């Protein structure tokens, strides 16, 4: 499989384990170890699971297995693929750090970090759509 697919899938695996770990933390929280920080991790768990794990696994496999774009550029733009990879990982990483913090301390600098993470993940989604669109073709 191509290098970018390996990076997507390995990063997805890391987010998969991390999402499960957050879920474990949340269940520990129900045993009276009440921590507002852990309580604020709900949206993080969902998005580590659905964006970090499921979406990245899909992105990696699509980049690898979808029909070739052309003989010169079988995977369309490798460069855009790598940009997508870094945008989604940095974006989601910033979200994981900043979202629980702003849940406890709204209106701080971390709000802008969360807004930046939103922008980076949105651009990653568009990058994937642009790079994949031309590879969805009828034979």
């Amino acid at each position, binding site marked *: 499989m191509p290098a970018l697919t390996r990076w997507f899938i390995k990063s997805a695996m890391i987010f998969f384990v991390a999402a499960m770990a957050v879920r474990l933390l949340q269940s520990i929280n129900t045993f009276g170890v009440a921590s507002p920080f852990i309580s604020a991790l709900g949206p993080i768990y969902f998005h580590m699971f659905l964006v970090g794990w499921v979406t990245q696994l899909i992105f990696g496999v699509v980049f690898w297995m979808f029909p070739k774009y052309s003989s010169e550029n079988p995977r369309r733009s490798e460069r855009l693929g790598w940009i997508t990879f870094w945008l989604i990982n940095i974006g989601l990483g910033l979200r994981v750090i900043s979202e629980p913090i*702003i849940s406890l301390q709204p209106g701080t600098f*971390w709000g802008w*970090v969360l807004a930046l993470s*939103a922008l980076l993940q949105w651009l990653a989604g568009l990058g994937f759509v642009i790079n994949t669109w031309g590879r969805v073709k009828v034979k």
Partner: protein
Amino acid sequence: MPLLSAFFIRTGLIYLALGFTFGGLMLFNKGVPVMPAAWSLLPAHIELLLIGWTIQLILGVAFWILPRFSHAPARGKEGLAWISYYMINAGIWVDIFSPLSHDLPWLPLFGRLLEVGSALVFALYAWPRIKATGV
């Protein structure tokens, strides 16, 4: 890939772009509250990414790669799969716009009914293709 798979996947890609846009707007607003109305996009965000993108990608790839029949038509009753495509997309749009139609309380039910129907029709279509190779 076959035409129907391209329809499923390209429609899914459009929903992916829309779903990420809605999610991005909500997340941006969570960090820097500039448009409180962004939160009303949450049901559409979930619908677009879960049903519109993920499920349609799965259905499109399934139609493409499940074992084909050794006799014509190689992909079986394709008409059923097309019906499933139209039903799921109608269901998605009804579901997205139903919160806006307060005078039509049955609309969300109708949207979900279309989606269940789509799932049932696709399952009926795909069932015979889930088979050993060469049969």
